[in-house]
């Protein structure tokens, strides 16, 4: 097991096949403690499937090793809350009976005014913050966010990423982030992993501005031959 190594997660040669189609092909990477790793790639590249694999939700081959006693917070991309009568308090209490107020306050929401509101009447930004509060309620070591600002306007998006950056820094939480936004990758992540069924690039996020790197991301995929590693 990983013990107290620098790495919170080690993924080795993970492949997924569904209905005779390759969804992930021999994916390997590591996640350093306290860092933010952006998962980037075109639609259908297998990003969400990779998250599902990390959560052990889909059958796969290869090896996934989380460090001992790791706590994972997860927020999926798609949620159906419009038609369900459930208050913020009831929703959070499904996960935990304590820390409700403090986790709402730490994502920038006024716990007193929002606690009894129905999830279905929240704005996109408020809903995302409640979900982040859900994810951090039991003080995880790592957060998995699948496009955490989908359905949020541009101003709200920036505010959510700033809040996420503060939370992860203050609590030494590692963040795995799926996003399409180059600005977000550059400003709010330390490393990026470009996925197109296989890993086509791994490196520091500032590389995203390099035209050669962009060609790798948006051009024809060329799979890495060796397991990616930090510097």
């Amino acid at each position, binding site marked *: 097991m990983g013990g107290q190594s620098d790495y919170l997660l080690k993924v080795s040669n993970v492949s997924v096949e569904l209905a005779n189609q390759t969804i992930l092909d021999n994916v390997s990477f590591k996640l350093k403690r306290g860092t933010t790793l952006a998962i980037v790639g075109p639609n259908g590249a297998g990003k969400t499937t990779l998250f599902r694999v990390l959560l052990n939700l889909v059958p796969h081959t290869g090896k996934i090793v989380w460090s001992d006693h790791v706590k*994972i917070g997860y*927020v999926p991309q798609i949620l159906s809350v419009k038609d369900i009568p*459930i208050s913020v308090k*009831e929703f959070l209490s499904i996960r935990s009976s304590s820390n409700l107020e403090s986790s709402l306050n730490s994502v920038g929401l006024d716990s007193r005014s929002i606690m009894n509101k129905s999830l279905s*009447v929240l704005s996109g930004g408020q809903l995302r913050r409640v979900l982040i509060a859900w994810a951090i309620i039991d003080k995880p070591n790592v957060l998995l966010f699948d496009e955490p600002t989908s359905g949020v306007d541009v101003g709200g998006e920036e505010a959510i990423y700033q809040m996420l950056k503060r939370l992860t820094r203050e609590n030494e939480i590692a963040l795995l982030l799926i996003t399409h936004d180059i600005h977000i990758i550059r400003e709010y992540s330390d490393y990026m992993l470009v996925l197109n069924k296989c890993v086509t690039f791994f490196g520091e996020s500032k590389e995203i501005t390099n035209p050669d790197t962009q060609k790798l991301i948006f051009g024809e995929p060329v799979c890495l031959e060796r397991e990616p590693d930090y510097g």
Partner: protein
Amino acid sequence: MLIEILIFSLLLGVFVGLSAGYVGSIMVLEKMALVGDALSHVALPGLALGLLFNFNPFLGAFAFLFGSAVVIWQLGRTTKLSFETIVGTIFTLALAIGILLVPEPDLLEALFGDITTISLVDTIIALIISIVVISLTRTIYKKTILSLISEELAISQGVKVGRINLLYLLLVSLVVAIGIKFTGTLLVGFLVVTPAAAAKTISSNMSRYFTLSAVFGAVSSFSGILLSSYLNTILYFGGWPPLPELDLVTSFLKVTALQSIPPGPLVVLIGVVIFLITIVIRRVTKFSAV
């Protein structure tokens, strides 16, 4: 003896109404309202076998509902078709077989219910089943709601969505089986759908929603059974008899036994009135899920 039947009927109605409303609130959220309705028809062949071979029709109905629930659950897992699609494909078959099997004199009773044969044992069974159904539903409703919000989120929290769906279908089967006694197979689906629909119209949180669903279910059942007895009395006497000449309670019950107006349709009508009232409340108060 007769007053006992009315008391047993009312108690059974309240127990079934409470548990059907409670369990039905998940069904409405799952958008499976038609499943509850259709599933009830599956009970008919079981009832028929009970009548033909002289064993408790409730057991036959429950066996068929239970078996169907397992088949529906398994087909849902293997074919990935929605519950509605699967239930839709088998319920008409069950109805057809049931109508062919049920002896004609008993058909009306099987379809629309009968309270004259309700015994103390039936009432105790209904009480036990209601307690079991409400308790078990309480243990799964948070997990079920989480899986409705996001199945991935639920699975990542260790929720076994498949098992919970199976348990849920079994709970619905239990409620439907006891509800058939007084509403009949055609109308029992109402009990798991309409009270929950009414509650959802004016609820912004889960606790209120589940509580109101159960209360509306109980009120509909209780009022429907009582109104059935009352109307039968009026029909019997050609109008409301002068009080001094009427031993009210006894007469009520004698004519209830005639079953001129079965309680099932009245339970449905009262439930629909409650539903309409909630819609008016929502409009008048400009209710929003604050």
